[in-house]
Protein backbone atom coordinates (compact mmCIF):
# COMPACT_ATOMS: atom_id res chain seq x y z
CA UNK A 1 0.00 0.00 0.00
CA UNK A 2 1.43 3.32 -1.02
CA UNK A 3 2.15 6.10 1.46
CA UNK A 4 -0.31 8.55 -0.10
CA UNK A 5 -3.13 6.05 0.28
CA UNK A 6 -2.20 5.55 3.91
CA UNK A 7 -2.25 9.29 4.49
CA UNK A 8 -5.62 9.56 2.74
CA UNK A 9 -7.05 6.78 4.83
CA UNK A 10 -5.64 8.26 8.02
CA UNK A 11 -8.21 11.07 7.93
CA UNK A 12 -11.69 9.74 8.85
CA UNK A 13 -13.97 9.56 5.83
CA UNK A 14 -16.62 11.65 7.58
CA UNK A 15 -14.42 14.72 7.25
CA UNK A 16 -14.21 14.25 3.49
CA UNK A 17 -17.98 13.82 3.24
CA UNK A 18 -18.50 16.98 5.27
CA UNK A 19 -16.05 18.99 3.18
CA UNK A 20 -17.54 17.71 -0.08
CA UNK A 21 -21.07 18.46 1.11
CA UNK A 22 -20.03 21.99 2.07
CA UNK A 23 -18.37 22.62 -1.30
CA UNK A 24 -21.43 21.18 -3.03
CA UNK A 25 -23.78 23.47 -1.11
CA UNK A 26 -21.62 26.51 -1.92
CA UNK A 27 -21.92 25.49 -5.58
CA UNK A 28 -25.70 25.05 -5.37
CA UNK A 29 -26.22 28.43 -3.70
CA UNK A 30 -23.92 30.05 -6.24
CA UNK A 31 -25.96 28.65 -9.13
CA UNK A 32 -29.20 29.78 -7.55
CA UNK A 33 -28.24 33.28 -6.36
CA UNK A 34 -25.35 34.74 -8.38
CA UNK A 35 -26.29 37.03 -11.25
CA UNK A 36 -23.17 36.78 -13.39
CA UNK A 37 -23.30 33.81 -15.76
CA UNK A 38 -19.55 33.19 -15.54
CA UNK A 39 -19.78 32.86 -11.76
CA UNK A 40 -22.75 30.52 -12.23
CA UNK A 41 -20.63 28.38 -14.52
CA UNK A 42 -17.83 28.33 -11.94
CA UNK A 43 -20.30 27.24 -9.27
CA UNK A 44 -21.45 24.33 -11.46
CA UNK A 45 -17.80 23.31 -11.70
CA UNK A 46 -17.53 23.55 -7.93
CA UNK A 47 -20.45 21.13 -7.57
CA UNK A 48 -18.82 18.63 -9.90
CA UNK A 49 -15.47 18.94 -8.15
CA UNK A 50 -17.11 18.37 -4.77
CA UNK A 51 -18.38 15.11 -6.24
CA UNK A 52 -14.87 14.30 -7.47
CA UNK A 53 -13.47 14.80 -3.99
CA UNK A 54 -16.15 12.57 -2.53
CA UNK A 55 -15.50 9.87 -5.12
CA UNK A 56 -11.77 9.85 -4.43
CA UNK A 57 -12.32 9.74 -0.67
CA UNK A 58 -14.70 6.79 -0.94
CA UNK A 59 -12.39 5.12 -3.40
CA UNK A 60 -9.57 5.28 -0.84
CA UNK A 61 -11.92 4.10 1.89
CA UNK A 62 -13.09 1.06 -0.08
CA UNK A 63 -9.63 0.44 -1.54
CA UNK A 64 -11.32 0.18 -4.93
CA UNK A 65 -10.05 1.97 -8.05
CA UNK A 66 -13.55 2.30 -9.61
CA UNK A 67 -14.24 5.63 -7.96
CA UNK A 68 -11.03 7.17 -9.26
CA UNK A 69 -11.83 6.05 -12.80
CA UNK A 70 -15.27 7.60 -12.45
CA UNK A 71 -13.53 10.86 -11.52
CA UNK A 72 -11.75 10.83 -14.87
CA UNK A 73 -15.10 10.46 -16.61
CA UNK A 74 -16.49 13.38 -14.63
CA UNK A 75 -13.49 15.59 -15.39
CA UNK A 76 -13.65 14.84 -19.14
CA UNK A 77 -17.39 15.42 -19.29
CA UNK A 78 -17.15 18.60 -17.22
CA UNK A 79 -14.55 19.98 -19.64
CA UNK A 80 -16.82 19.22 -22.62
CA UNK A 81 -19.78 20.73 -20.85
CA UNK A 82 -17.98 23.94 -19.95
CA UNK A 83 -16.72 24.42 -23.50
CA UNK A 84 -20.31 24.22 -24.75
CA UNK A 85 -21.53 26.52 -21.98
CA UNK A 86 -18.87 29.13 -22.71
CA UNK A 87 -19.70 28.98 -26.43
CA UNK A 88 -23.37 29.66 -25.65
CA UNK A 89 -22.30 32.55 -23.41
CA UNK A 90 -20.25 34.04 -26.25
CA UNK A 91 -23.38 33.86 -28.44
CA UNK A 92 -25.41 35.65 -25.76
CA UNK A 93 -22.71 38.31 -25.38
CA UNK A 94 -22.67 38.90 -29.15
CA UNK A 95 -26.43 39.27 -29.32
CA UNK A 96 -27.03 41.29 -26.18
CA UNK A 97 -23.67 42.79 -25.16
CA UNK A 98 -23.83 41.46 -21.60
CA UNK A 99 -23.58 38.23 -19.64
CA UNK A 100 -25.90 39.27 -16.84
CA UNK A 101 -28.40 36.53 -16.06
CA UNK A 102 -31.25 39.03 -15.56
CA UNK A 103 -31.18 39.75 -19.28
CA UNK A 104 -32.33 36.19 -19.89
CA UNK A 105 -35.97 36.79 -19.10
CA UNK A 106 -37.42 37.11 -22.59
CA UNK A 107 -39.16 33.74 -22.43
CA UNK A 108 -42.25 34.19 -20.26
CA UNK A 109 -45.74 32.83 -20.79
Amino acid sequence: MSLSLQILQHVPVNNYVLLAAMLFCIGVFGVLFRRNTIIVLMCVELMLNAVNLLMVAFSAMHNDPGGQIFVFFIMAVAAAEVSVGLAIMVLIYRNSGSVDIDLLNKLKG
Partner: protein
Amino acid sequence: MNTLIAIAGIGIVAMIADILRIRKIIFPVAMAGLAIAAFTAVSDWNTNTRYFNDMMFFDNYAAAFSLLIVVIAIIWFVMAVPDLKTGNHYSDKSALVAFSLAGSVVMVSFSNLAMLFLGIEILSVSLYVLAASNKNNLLSNEAGFKYFIMGAFATGIFLFGVALIYGACGTFNLQEINAFVATNKSDLSGQMYTGVLLMIIGLSFKIAAAPFHFWAPDVYEGSPTTITAFMSTIVKVAAFGALYRLMAGCFSQINEWWTTVFIILSVVSMLVGNIMATRQSSFKRLLAFSSISHAGYMLLPLLTLSDLTGTSLLLYGAAYAFASIGIFSLVSVMSENDDESIDSLNGFAKSHPIKAILFSVLLLSLAGIPPLAGFMGKYYAFYAALKSGNTSIVLIAIISSLIGVYYYLQVIIAMYKPTGHTSASFRFTIYQNIVLWTCFLITLILGIFPQLIIGWL
Protein backbone atom coordinates in the same frame (compact mmCIF):
# COMPACT_ATOMS: atom_id res chain seq x y z
CA MET B 1 -24.61 -2.92 -29.14
CA ASN B 2 -24.57 -2.80 -32.96
CA THR B 3 -27.43 -0.32 -32.66
CA LEU B 4 -25.08 2.02 -30.86
CA ILE B 5 -22.32 1.58 -33.45
CA ALA B 6 -24.71 2.19 -36.36
CA ILE B 7 -26.04 5.39 -34.77
CA ALA B 8 -22.57 6.70 -33.92
CA GLY B 9 -21.59 5.88 -37.51
CA ILE B 10 -24.30 8.21 -38.82
CA GLY B 11 -22.84 11.02 -36.75
CA ILE B 12 -19.31 10.46 -38.01
CA VAL B 13 -20.42 10.24 -41.66
CA ALA B 14 -22.48 13.41 -41.25
CA MET B 15 -19.44 15.29 -39.94
CA ILE B 16 -17.16 14.00 -42.71
CA ALA B 17 -19.78 14.82 -45.36
CA ASP B 18 -19.33 18.48 -44.57
CA ILE B 19 -15.57 18.32 -45.16
CA LEU B 20 -15.95 16.37 -48.41
CA ARG B 21 -18.82 18.66 -49.53
CA ILE B 22 -21.26 15.80 -50.06
CA ARG B 23 -24.04 17.09 -47.82
CA LYS B 24 -26.65 15.47 -50.07
CA ILE B 25 -25.81 12.02 -48.71
CA ILE B 26 -26.57 12.91 -45.09
CA PHE B 27 -30.29 12.26 -45.26
CA PRO B 28 -30.06 8.90 -47.11
CA VAL B 29 -27.19 7.81 -44.84
CA ALA B 30 -29.14 8.78 -41.74
CA MET B 31 -32.19 6.86 -42.94
CA ALA B 32 -30.12 3.81 -43.85
CA GLY B 33 -28.16 3.97 -40.60
CA LEU B 34 -31.31 4.24 -38.51
CA ALA B 35 -32.88 1.36 -40.44
CA ILE B 36 -29.78 -0.75 -39.69
CA ALA B 37 -29.97 0.36 -36.06
CA ALA B 38 -33.62 -0.71 -35.88
CA PHE B 39 -32.78 -4.05 -37.48
CA THR B 40 -29.89 -4.72 -35.08
CA ALA B 41 -32.07 -3.75 -32.12
CA VAL B 42 -34.56 -6.40 -33.26
CA SER B 43 -31.80 -8.96 -33.76
CA ASP B 44 -30.57 -8.28 -30.20
CA TRP B 45 -33.87 -9.71 -28.96
CA ASN B 46 -33.37 -12.53 -26.44
CA THR B 47 -29.58 -12.45 -26.78
CA ASN B 48 -29.00 -10.86 -23.32
CA THR B 49 -25.36 -10.05 -24.00
CA ARG B 50 -23.13 -8.09 -21.63
CA TYR B 51 -20.52 -5.78 -23.14
CA PHE B 52 -17.36 -4.03 -21.88
CA ASN B 53 -16.86 -5.91 -18.62
CA ASP B 54 -20.53 -5.64 -17.74
CA MET B 55 -20.71 -1.91 -18.37
CA MET B 56 -23.67 -2.41 -20.71
CA PHE B 57 -26.31 -5.11 -20.81
CA PHE B 58 -28.51 -5.57 -23.90
CA ASP B 59 -31.50 -7.43 -22.55
CA ASN B 60 -34.98 -7.39 -24.08
CA TYR B 61 -35.82 -4.23 -22.19
CA ALA B 62 -32.85 -2.39 -23.73
CA ALA B 63 -33.66 -3.77 -27.19
CA ALA B 64 -37.30 -2.70 -26.99
CA PHE B 65 -36.50 0.81 -25.80
CA SER B 66 -33.66 1.18 -28.34
CA LEU B 67 -36.06 0.12 -31.09
CA LEU B 68 -38.69 2.62 -29.93
CA ILE B 69 -36.10 5.41 -29.79
CA VAL B 70 -34.77 4.56 -33.25
CA VAL B 71 -38.27 4.44 -34.79
CA ILE B 72 -39.16 7.79 -33.23
CA ALA B 73 -35.83 9.12 -34.52
CA ILE B 74 -36.62 7.99 -38.08
CA ILE B 75 -39.94 9.83 -38.03
CA TRP B 76 -38.37 12.82 -36.34
CA PHE B 77 -35.63 12.98 -38.98
CA VAL B 78 -38.17 12.97 -41.81
CA MET B 79 -40.05 15.77 -40.09
CA ALA B 80 -36.95 17.84 -39.33
CA VAL B 81 -34.99 17.51 -42.56
CA PRO B 82 -36.47 20.57 -44.35
CA ASP B 83 -35.73 22.64 -41.26
CA LEU B 84 -32.23 21.21 -40.84
CA LYS B 85 -31.39 21.91 -44.47
CA THR B 86 -32.17 25.60 -44.20
CA GLY B 87 -29.32 27.44 -42.52
CA ASN B 88 -25.63 26.73 -42.59
CA HIS B 89 -25.06 23.84 -40.29
CA TYR B 90 -26.97 20.93 -41.78
CA SER B 91 -24.22 18.37 -41.25
CA ASP B 92 -23.25 19.62 -37.78
CA LYS B 93 -26.83 19.52 -36.58
CA SER B 94 -27.40 16.05 -38.02
CA ALA B 95 -24.21 14.81 -36.39
CA LEU B 96 -25.22 16.26 -33.03
CA VAL B 97 -28.63 14.64 -33.30
CA ALA B 98 -27.01 11.29 -34.08
CA PHE B 99 -24.68 11.57 -31.08
CA SER B 100 -27.57 12.56 -28.90
CA LEU B 101 -29.40 9.42 -30.07
CA ALA B 102 -26.33 7.36 -29.24
CA GLY B 103 -26.49 8.81 -25.73
CA SER B 104 -30.15 7.84 -25.41
CA VAL B 105 -29.38 4.25 -26.46
CA VAL B 106 -26.65 4.12 -23.79
CA MET B 107 -29.16 5.44 -21.25
CA VAL B 108 -31.57 2.54 -21.77
CA SER B 109 -28.91 -0.21 -21.88
CA PHE B 110 -26.52 0.66 -19.05
CA SER B 111 -25.51 -1.83 -16.43
CA ASN B 112 -23.17 0.44 -14.53
CA LEU B 113 -23.79 3.87 -13.05
CA ALA B 114 -20.79 5.24 -14.97
CA MET B 115 -22.50 4.36 -18.26
CA LEU B 116 -25.74 5.94 -17.08
CA PHE B 117 -23.85 9.15 -16.33
CA LEU B 118 -22.06 9.07 -19.70
CA GLY B 119 -25.32 8.37 -21.54
CA ILE B 120 -27.07 11.30 -19.90
CA GLU B 121 -24.15 13.58 -20.73
CA ILE B 122 -23.75 12.45 -24.35
CA LEU B 123 -27.45 13.09 -24.79
CA SER B 124 -27.45 16.44 -23.01
CA VAL B 125 -24.27 18.10 -24.24
CA SER B 126 -25.36 17.66 -27.87
CA LEU B 127 -28.78 19.04 -27.00
CA TYR B 128 -27.37 22.16 -25.32
CA VAL B 129 -25.79 23.06 -28.66
CA LEU B 130 -28.92 22.17 -30.64
CA ALA B 131 -31.18 24.21 -28.35
CA ALA B 132 -29.00 27.27 -28.99
CA SER B 133 -28.52 26.42 -32.68
CA ASN B 134 -30.53 29.39 -33.93
CA LYS B 135 -27.45 31.52 -33.41
CA ASN B 136 -28.75 35.01 -34.15
CA ASN B 137 -31.91 34.64 -32.12
CA LEU B 138 -31.50 35.71 -28.50
CA LEU B 139 -34.47 33.57 -27.46
CA SER B 140 -32.76 30.46 -28.78
CA ASN B 141 -29.54 31.45 -26.98
CA GLU B 142 -31.48 31.97 -23.80
CA ALA B 143 -33.14 28.57 -24.18
CA GLY B 144 -29.79 26.91 -24.77
CA PHE B 145 -28.22 28.60 -21.78
CA LYS B 146 -31.11 27.77 -19.46
CA TYR B 147 -31.05 24.17 -20.63
CA PHE B 148 -27.30 24.07 -20.10
CA ILE B 149 -27.37 25.49 -16.58
CA MET B 150 -30.27 23.31 -15.49
CA GLY B 151 -28.76 20.24 -17.12
CA ALA B 152 -25.37 20.79 -15.49
CA PHE B 153 -27.04 21.51 -12.15
CA ALA B 154 -29.07 18.30 -12.42
CA THR B 155 -25.95 16.36 -13.36
CA GLY B 156 -24.20 17.68 -10.27
CA ILE B 157 -27.06 16.56 -8.02
CA PHE B 158 -27.26 13.19 -9.78
CA LEU B 159 -23.51 12.65 -9.40
CA PHE B 160 -23.59 13.52 -5.71
CA GLY B 161 -26.19 10.78 -5.33
CA VAL B 162 -23.99 8.35 -7.26
CA ALA B 163 -21.03 9.21 -5.04
CA LEU B 164 -23.03 8.62 -1.86
CA ILE B 165 -24.27 5.26 -3.14
CA TYR B 166 -20.72 4.36 -4.08
CA GLY B 167 -19.65 5.27 -0.57
CA ALA B 168 -22.29 2.98 0.90
CA CYS B 169 -21.83 -0.01 -1.46
CA GLY B 170 -18.32 0.34 -2.85
CA THR B 171 -19.39 -0.46 -6.41
CA PHE B 172 -21.04 1.12 -9.44
CA ASN B 173 -22.38 -2.11 -10.86
CA LEU B 174 -26.17 -2.38 -10.89
CA GLN B 175 -26.31 -6.04 -9.94
CA GLU B 176 -23.80 -5.67 -7.11
CA ILE B 177 -25.65 -2.67 -5.71
CA ASN B 178 -28.89 -4.66 -5.92
CA ALA B 179 -27.26 -7.57 -4.06
CA PHE B 180 -25.90 -5.16 -1.45
CA VAL B 181 -29.32 -3.58 -0.93
CA ALA B 182 -30.95 -7.01 -0.70
CA THR B 183 -28.55 -8.31 1.97
CA ASN B 184 -28.48 -5.11 4.06
CA LYS B 185 -32.13 -4.23 3.59
CA SER B 186 -32.93 -3.78 7.27
CA ASP B 187 -29.96 -1.59 8.22
CA LEU B 188 -29.29 0.59 5.20
CA SER B 189 -27.60 3.83 6.19
CA GLY B 190 -29.11 7.26 5.66
CA GLN B 191 -26.30 7.85 3.19
CA MET B 192 -27.81 5.25 0.87
CA TYR B 193 -31.30 6.77 1.03
CA THR B 194 -29.92 10.26 0.47
CA GLY B 195 -28.03 8.97 -2.55
CA VAL B 196 -31.14 7.37 -4.07
CA LEU B 197 -33.16 10.53 -3.45
CA LEU B 198 -30.52 12.74 -5.09
CA MET B 199 -30.36 10.42 -8.11
CA ILE B 200 -34.16 10.54 -8.48
CA ILE B 201 -34.05 14.35 -8.29
CA GLY B 202 -31.30 14.48 -10.91
CA LEU B 203 -33.29 12.30 -13.30
CA SER B 204 -36.50 14.24 -12.56
CA PHE B 205 -34.86 17.28 -14.11
CA LYS B 206 -34.31 15.27 -17.28
CA ILE B 207 -37.88 13.95 -17.48
CA ALA B 208 -39.19 17.43 -16.59
CA ALA B 209 -41.35 16.24 -13.71
CA ALA B 210 -42.68 18.94 -11.40
CA PRO B 211 -41.36 20.47 -9.12
CA PHE B 212 -38.19 20.22 -11.24
CA HIS B 213 -39.90 21.36 -14.43
CA PHE B 214 -39.38 25.14 -14.29
CA TRP B 215 -36.80 25.15 -17.06
CA ALA B 216 -38.96 23.16 -19.50
CA PRO B 217 -41.52 25.72 -20.77
CA ASP B 218 -38.85 28.34 -21.46
CA VAL B 219 -36.47 25.92 -23.13
CA TYR B 220 -39.20 24.29 -25.21
CA GLU B 221 -40.48 27.67 -26.36
CA GLY B 222 -37.13 29.20 -27.20
CA SER B 223 -35.50 26.27 -28.98
CA PRO B 224 -36.03 25.70 -32.70
CA THR B 225 -39.31 23.75 -33.09
CA THR B 226 -37.77 20.58 -34.47
CA ILE B 227 -35.35 20.45 -31.53
CA THR B 228 -38.27 20.97 -29.16
CA ALA B 229 -39.91 17.93 -30.76
CA PHE B 230 -36.72 15.96 -30.17
CA MET B 231 -36.47 17.05 -26.55
CA SER B 232 -40.07 16.38 -25.66
CA THR B 233 -40.19 12.91 -27.24
CA ILE B 234 -36.88 11.06 -27.52
CA VAL B 235 -35.27 12.59 -24.45
CA LYS B 236 -38.33 11.87 -22.35
CA VAL B 237 -38.60 8.25 -23.53
CA ALA B 238 -34.88 7.67 -22.94
CA ALA B 239 -34.95 9.29 -19.50
CA PHE B 240 -37.93 7.16 -18.46
CA GLY B 241 -36.19 4.08 -19.80
CA ALA B 242 -33.17 4.96 -17.68
CA LEU B 243 -35.27 5.73 -14.62
CA TYR B 244 -37.11 2.41 -14.74
CA ARG B 245 -33.93 0.45 -15.42
CA LEU B 246 -32.25 2.14 -12.47
CA MET B 247 -35.10 1.73 -10.00
CA ALA B 248 -36.04 -1.83 -11.00
CA GLY B 249 -32.50 -3.09 -11.53
CA CYS B 250 -30.88 -1.44 -8.55
CA PHE B 251 -33.32 -0.48 -5.81
CA SER B 252 -36.23 -2.86 -6.29
CA GLN B 253 -35.78 -4.08 -2.70
CA ILE B 254 -36.58 -0.70 -1.16
CA ASN B 255 -39.43 0.16 -3.53
CA GLU B 256 -41.89 1.01 -0.73
CA TRP B 257 -39.61 3.87 0.16
CA TRP B 258 -39.05 5.42 -3.27
CA THR B 259 -42.66 4.84 -4.34
CA THR B 260 -43.61 7.66 -1.95
CA VAL B 261 -41.20 9.98 -3.76
CA PHE B 262 -42.67 9.01 -7.13
CA ILE B 263 -46.23 9.56 -5.89
CA ILE B 264 -45.36 13.12 -4.92
CA LEU B 265 -43.56 13.79 -8.22
CA SER B 266 -46.41 12.26 -10.21
CA VAL B 267 -49.27 14.12 -8.50
CA VAL B 268 -47.49 17.48 -8.60
CA SER B 269 -46.52 17.01 -12.28
CA MET B 270 -50.05 16.07 -13.35
CA LEU B 271 -51.66 18.98 -11.52
CA VAL B 272 -49.07 21.65 -12.34
CA GLY B 273 -48.71 20.57 -15.97
CA ASN B 274 -52.41 20.41 -16.72
CA ILE B 275 -53.50 23.50 -14.79
CA MET B 276 -50.73 25.68 -16.22
CA ALA B 277 -51.41 24.42 -19.75
CA THR B 278 -54.95 25.80 -19.66
CA ARG B 279 -53.57 29.32 -19.24
CA GLN B 280 -51.22 29.33 -22.26
CA SER B 281 -51.85 31.21 -25.48
CA SER B 282 -48.76 29.89 -27.28
CA PHE B 283 -49.24 26.42 -28.76
CA LYS B 284 -45.59 25.48 -28.21
CA ARG B 285 -45.76 26.48 -24.55
CA LEU B 286 -49.00 24.56 -24.15
CA LEU B 287 -47.27 21.46 -25.48
CA ALA B 288 -44.42 22.06 -23.03
CA PHE B 289 -46.81 22.02 -20.07
CA SER B 290 -48.66 19.05 -21.51
CA SER B 291 -45.34 17.18 -21.70
CA ILE B 292 -44.84 17.91 -17.98
CA SER B 293 -48.25 16.42 -17.25
CA HIS B 294 -47.42 13.37 -19.38
CA ALA B 295 -44.28 12.89 -17.28
CA GLY B 296 -46.66 12.64 -14.32
CA TYR B 297 -48.75 9.95 -16.03
CA MET B 298 -45.64 8.04 -17.06
CA LEU B 299 -44.52 7.87 -13.43
CA LEU B 300 -47.69 5.94 -12.54
CA PRO B 301 -46.57 2.53 -13.90
CA LEU B 302 -43.42 2.83 -11.78
CA LEU B 303 -45.49 2.78 -8.58
CA THR B 304 -45.65 -1.00 -8.74
CA LEU B 305 -42.91 -3.20 -10.13
CA SER B 306 -44.41 -6.07 -12.12
CA ASP B 307 -44.11 -7.63 -15.57
CA LEU B 308 -46.43 -4.97 -16.87
CA THR B 309 -44.38 -1.97 -15.68
CA GLY B 310 -41.87 -1.97 -18.52
CA THR B 311 -44.40 -2.62 -21.27
CA SER B 312 -46.90 -0.05 -20.05
CA LEU B 313 -44.09 2.48 -19.92
CA LEU B 314 -43.15 1.50 -23.46
CA LEU B 315 -46.73 1.77 -24.68
CA TYR B 316 -47.26 5.15 -23.05
CA GLY B 317 -43.93 6.38 -24.41
CA ALA B 318 -44.82 5.25 -27.93
CA ALA B 319 -48.35 6.71 -27.80
CA TYR B 320 -47.10 10.02 -26.43
CA ALA B 321 -44.07 10.33 -28.73
CA PHE B 322 -45.84 9.54 -32.02
CA ALA B 323 -48.77 11.85 -31.28
CA SER B 324 -46.39 14.61 -30.19
CA ILE B 325 -44.18 14.39 -33.27
CA GLY B 326 -47.24 14.58 -35.51
CA ILE B 327 -48.43 17.69 -33.69
CA PHE B 328 -44.96 19.23 -33.75
CA SER B 329 -45.00 18.95 -37.55
CA LEU B 330 -47.89 21.43 -37.39
CA VAL B 331 -45.99 23.65 -34.94
CA SER B 332 -42.95 23.67 -37.23
CA VAL B 333 -45.16 24.93 -40.05
CA MET B 334 -46.55 27.56 -37.69
CA SER B 335 -43.06 28.70 -36.67
CA GLU B 336 -42.28 29.46 -40.29
CA ASN B 337 -45.02 32.10 -40.06
CA ASP B 338 -43.44 33.38 -36.80
CA ASP B 339 -46.78 32.99 -35.08
CA GLU B 340 -47.15 30.13 -32.61
CA SER B 341 -50.28 31.36 -30.85
CA ILE B 342 -53.30 29.07 -30.74
CA ASP B 343 -55.47 31.78 -32.30
CA SER B 344 -53.36 31.74 -35.45
CA LEU B 345 -54.85 28.30 -36.16
CA ASN B 346 -58.26 29.89 -36.84
CA GLY B 347 -59.47 28.88 -40.26
CA PHE B 348 -57.12 25.93 -40.47
CA ALA B 349 -59.95 23.43 -40.90
CA LYS B 350 -61.33 25.38 -43.83
CA SER B 351 -58.07 25.50 -45.76
CA HIS B 352 -56.86 21.98 -44.77
CA PRO B 353 -59.96 19.90 -43.92
CA ILE B 354 -58.26 16.48 -43.93
CA LYS B 355 -55.21 17.64 -41.99
CA ALA B 356 -57.47 19.24 -39.40
CA ILE B 357 -59.08 15.84 -38.80
CA LEU B 358 -55.67 14.14 -38.50
CA PHE B 359 -54.39 16.74 -36.04
CA SER B 360 -57.61 16.50 -34.04
CA VAL B 361 -57.13 12.74 -33.79
CA LEU B 362 -53.54 13.20 -32.57
CA LEU B 363 -54.61 15.81 -30.01
CA LEU B 364 -57.42 13.55 -28.80
CA SER B 365 -54.90 10.73 -28.46
CA LEU B 366 -52.79 12.95 -26.18
CA ALA B 367 -55.95 13.76 -24.22
CA GLY B 368 -56.65 10.05 -23.83
CA ILE B 369 -59.86 9.50 -25.81
CA PRO B 370 -60.60 5.87 -26.83
CA PRO B 371 -59.92 4.10 -29.18
CA LEU B 372 -56.60 5.92 -29.69
CA ALA B 373 -53.13 4.99 -28.48
CA GLY B 374 -53.10 7.64 -25.75
CA PHE B 375 -56.13 6.03 -24.12
CA MET B 376 -54.53 2.59 -24.02
CA GLY B 377 -51.35 4.11 -22.59
CA LYS B 378 -53.32 5.83 -19.85
CA TYR B 379 -55.40 2.70 -19.26
CA TYR B 380 -52.37 0.55 -18.52
CA ALA B 381 -50.70 3.32 -16.50
CA PHE B 382 -53.79 3.76 -14.31
CA TYR B 383 -54.22 0.01 -14.05
CA ALA B 384 -50.68 -0.34 -12.72
CA ALA B 385 -51.26 2.43 -10.20
CA LEU B 386 -54.52 0.78 -9.09
CA LYS B 387 -52.76 -2.54 -8.61
CA SER B 388 -50.30 -0.84 -6.25
CA GLY B 389 -53.30 0.19 -4.15
CA ASN B 390 -53.04 3.94 -4.72
CA THR B 391 -56.69 4.59 -5.56
CA SER B 392 -56.54 8.25 -4.61
CA ILE B 393 -53.65 8.82 -7.01
CA VAL B 394 -55.68 7.35 -9.86
CA LEU B 395 -58.56 9.63 -8.93
CA ILE B 396 -56.26 12.66 -9.15
CA ALA B 397 -54.89 11.36 -12.45
CA ILE B 398 -58.39 11.05 -13.92
CA ILE B 399 -59.38 14.53 -12.77
CA SER B 400 -56.21 16.03 -14.21
CA SER B 401 -56.67 14.21 -17.51
CA LEU B 402 -60.15 15.77 -17.66
CA ILE B 403 -58.47 19.17 -17.38
CA GLY B 404 -56.21 17.92 -20.20
CA VAL B 405 -59.22 17.22 -22.42
CA TYR B 406 -60.30 20.83 -21.89
CA TYR B 407 -57.16 22.43 -23.28
CA TYR B 408 -56.61 19.95 -26.09
CA LEU B 409 -60.20 20.60 -27.18
CA GLN B 410 -59.51 24.33 -27.09
CA VAL B 411 -56.86 23.83 -29.75
CA ILE B 412 -59.25 21.76 -31.87
CA ILE B 413 -61.96 24.41 -31.49
CA ALA B 414 -59.45 27.05 -32.57
CA MET B 415 -58.76 25.05 -35.73
CA TYR B 416 -62.46 24.84 -36.60
CA LYS B 417 -63.20 28.52 -35.91
CA PRO B 418 -63.75 30.68 -38.99
CA THR B 419 -60.82 32.77 -40.13
CA GLY B 420 -60.05 35.90 -38.14
CA HIS B 421 -58.88 39.13 -39.70
CA THR B 422 -55.39 37.73 -40.19
CA SER B 423 -55.36 34.49 -42.14
CA ALA B 424 -52.02 32.75 -41.89
CA SER B 425 -51.11 30.40 -44.71
CA PHE B 426 -49.80 26.97 -43.80
CA ARG B 427 -47.35 25.42 -46.23
CA PHE B 428 -46.81 21.72 -45.61
CA THR B 429 -43.93 20.01 -47.36
CA ILE B 430 -44.09 16.40 -48.53
CA TYR B 431 -41.96 15.40 -45.51
CA GLN B 432 -44.45 16.80 -43.05
CA ASN B 433 -47.32 15.08 -44.86
CA ILE B 434 -45.53 11.72 -44.58
CA VAL B 435 -44.85 12.27 -40.87
CA LEU B 436 -48.43 13.31 -40.21
CA TRP B 437 -49.95 10.27 -41.91
CA THR B 438 -47.45 7.87 -40.30
CA CYS B 439 -48.09 9.24 -36.83
CA PHE B 440 -51.84 9.13 -37.42
CA LEU B 441 -51.73 5.50 -38.55
CA ILE B 442 -49.46 4.42 -35.66
CA THR B 443 -51.70 6.21 -33.15
CA LEU B 444 -54.76 4.47 -34.54
CA ILE B 445 -53.15 1.01 -34.78
CA LEU B 446 -51.65 1.15 -31.29
CA GLY B 447 -55.00 2.24 -29.93
CA ILE B 448 -56.88 -0.68 -31.47
CA PHE B 449 -54.14 -3.30 -31.04
CA PRO B 450 -52.19 -2.35 -27.88
CA GLN B 451 -51.09 -5.99 -27.60
CA LEU B 452 -48.59 -5.18 -30.38
CA ILE B 453 -46.51 -3.71 -27.54
CA ILE B 454 -48.13 -5.03 -24.34
CA GLY B 455 -46.87 -8.43 -23.30
CA TRP B 456 -43.62 -8.38 -25.22
CA LEU B 457 -41.19 -7.66 -22.44
